[in-house]
């Protein structure tokens, strides 16, 4: 068991650290970009900083060199992330583009797409967003209803609604999963498109969460015309392309795993100032359980990194860390607000913000139920649930559902 770098890793870390020290004055401060469209100046600074990181080799660390990346492994990406955190500097702006969508273009895109889009993405000139989820296609992503109808000239016209779209408000492009064929089973009739966010018919609307902040967006597409050259990975092949994105999503989360800032020390500090609470056995029992869970995650992430450094890709069980984090943070919010009282629920209070944020986080990126299904089946080897929608043309699914014919 060795928590230290190998000599090669130590040398790389030193190189990264030196670069950051040399350039730290050029970096903006660390701040959420979630509601960032409201502060164009800050966004511009983050784009510029991403460009500098790319020039310094600290963006696209795992991208192949031919596309401007470093051709390094995930452990080097982690080292970059760690050093950025240590230096108190912000990372790249477009985590979704560089971590998930760029790698998908590299895997499935045409040569023209790669040469046109990857460079501006890497340097922060063009931010990307992922447009997969819809109001009726969340856990069951293959149920997307957004239609893309081919025209006489070979172009497509897209209509429908996407939701939970992070960064849409300042993105240049979206990677859009839409249905091109409704007469075949649902996994088979989808296609992936590159959609310019400034195309006529694209409307982005902020989606406010419980806290009142717009952490996500809804995106509406009304008769948006997209040329055939914007298809990624082939017509009706969209599901396979989407799975590539989801695989890189899991990898990105495995590499990050900062636990959303929820850690045992922060929660304990909120309680230790209250001398009555600090000696209350019930408070201590709850804090001890929360703290234990969150402490476990620290070494769980080391286990993931250890596996990554040996070339393994994290399995679905790494999703359990999110379950642990969210539930521990929910318990912490309850505990702290119980001790502090209603003032913890003042909208300006950090705990009120956390308490409001967590219910949405719980289902973001797939509900706990779906995750447990996946882990039960893929990790423990338990048999799957019966699937009633297999082999049925998409166009007939809704009617069959409604009449209960599938049950």
């Amino acid at each position, binding site marked *: 068991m060795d928590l230290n770098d190998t000599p090669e890793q130590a040398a790389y870390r030193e190189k990264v650290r030196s670069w950051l020290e040399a350039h730290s004055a050029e970096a903006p401060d660390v701040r959420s970009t979630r509601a960032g469209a409201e502060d164009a100046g800050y966004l511009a600074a983050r784009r510029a900083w991403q460009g500098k990181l790319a020039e310094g080799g600290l963006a696209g660390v795992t991208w192949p060199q031919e596309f401007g990346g470093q051709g390094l492994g995930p452990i080097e990406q982690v080292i970059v992330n760690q050093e950025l955190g240590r230096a108190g500097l912000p990372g790249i702006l477009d985590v979704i583009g560089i971590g998930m969508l760029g790698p998908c273009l590299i895997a499935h895109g045409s040569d023209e797409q790669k040469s046109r889009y990857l460079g501006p993405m890497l340097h922060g000139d063009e931010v990307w967003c992922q447009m997969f989820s819809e109001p009726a296609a969340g856990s069951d992503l293959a149920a997307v209803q957004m239609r893309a109808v081919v025209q006489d000239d070979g172009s497509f016209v897209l209509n429908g609604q996407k939701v939970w779209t992070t960064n849409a408000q300042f993105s240049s492009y979206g990677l859009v999963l839409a249905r091109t064929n409704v007469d075949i089973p649902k996994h088979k009739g989808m296609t992936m498109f590159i959609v310019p966010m400034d195309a006529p018919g694209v409307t982005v609307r902020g989606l406010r969460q*419980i806290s009142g902040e717009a952490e996500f967006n809804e995106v509406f597409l009304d008769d948006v015309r997209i040329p055939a050259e914007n298809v990624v990975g082939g017509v009706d092949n969209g599901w396979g392309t989407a799975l590539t994105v989801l695989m890189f999503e899991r990898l990105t989360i495995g590499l990050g795993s900062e636990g959303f800032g929820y850690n045992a020390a922060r929660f304990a500090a909120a309680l230790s100032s209250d001398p009555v609470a600090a000696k209350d056995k019930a408070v201590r029992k709850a804090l001890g359980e929360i703290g234990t869970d969150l402490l476990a995650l620290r070494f769980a992430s080391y286990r993931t990194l250890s596996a990554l450094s040996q070339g393994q890709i994290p399995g679905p069980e790494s999703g359990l860390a999110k379950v642990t984090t969210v539930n521990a943070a*929910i318990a912490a919010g309850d505990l702290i607000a119980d001790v502090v*009282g209603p003032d913890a629920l003042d909208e300006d209070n950090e705990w009120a913000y956390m308490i409001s944020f967590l*219910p*949405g986080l719980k*289902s973001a990126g797939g509900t706990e139920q779906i995750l447990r299904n996946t882990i039960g089946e893929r990790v423990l080897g338990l048999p799957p649930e019966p*699937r009633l929608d297999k082999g049925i043309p998409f166009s007939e699914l809704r009617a069959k559902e409604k009449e209960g014919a599938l049950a």
Partner: protein
Amino acid sequence: MDLSLTDEQEFLREAARGTLSRFKIIEAAREAQDKGLGELPDLWPAAREAGWAGLLISEEHGGAGLDVFDAMLVAEETGRVLAPVPFLGLVPATAILDAAGYDGLAAIAAGEVRPVWIPARPPGDLEPAWTVDGPGAARPAAPTISGEGDSVTVTGHAAYVVDAPGADLLVVTGVDGTVAVVDANAAGVSVEQVVRYDVTRALAHVTLENAPGTRLAVDAAVAADAWYVAQALIAAEAVGTVQTTLEMSVQYAKERFTFGRAIGSYQAVKHELTEVLRRLENGRSLLFYAGWSRADAPDEFPLAASAARSAAGGALDFAARSNINVHGGIGATWEHDAPLYFRRAQLTRRLIGGHGDATDRVAERLLAA
């Protein structure tokens, strides 16, 4: 053995539901979150008309002379729709004032003068003093009531007093368990409205500095009873709110399809919703215990009311989160109704002692038995 409601109780409940249904409360609450409390309807005239002000006041003083259980039926209806009506702060106040044979009962019963009760927790085996709600784990001492005879002065502070904004009279329990009435407009009285997460719950910090008041002829048992009346009312409110969230969740679970099946057909959803039902039914059973014991076995009332609040409060916590979970991401958005019930659950959990204190009181009574 007959736990069914009397015809009068059925009528009271139906009338309450009818009264409240005339207002678009949930819609107004969403508006109020954006635009301020002014968006909320004023329910007090309707409550007066329905006779809620005098529910517990004896008939000789112009009230309806009903039981706490009857008031709980109304509270269940206010809880169903998160009605911002000053009922929870009123009922314990009228219970004390009626027991004291207070002079102005007729005007109170008519709803012309609105009293509010400042929650004061009776001493327990671990905390020997009367205390009020305040920030932090150490509960502040209740106000000091000074002076011999009927005229007294009152000094102290109580935070998050439910329904205090706009009240005419403050019913204050002192650190010694005596009770005084203070005019809300008297010198030395400050009632500072605050909003904490749930716009449908009117709250204020109340500060009294040598405020002139009138001592009430009641003993500490009456002051303690008011605490448990409030616990029973919160429990009833919570049962009503849980009922609403369960209906929402079940409806959505039938209509929302994923992987070719209604989500309610999956065990994870189905079992979570039966857990809501289990907690709801346990809470409801304890409402009967609280209502019955208040009338027929007062020695058991502190245990019953505390247990009711503990169970119903736990049910509300669980149901409010579960409702969001069943709805998925959309249930956690600003425009959705589900967060309104979640906000209600979060704040109520920390008011008037909090659910945790009620659970502790259950243990205390069981250990002492």
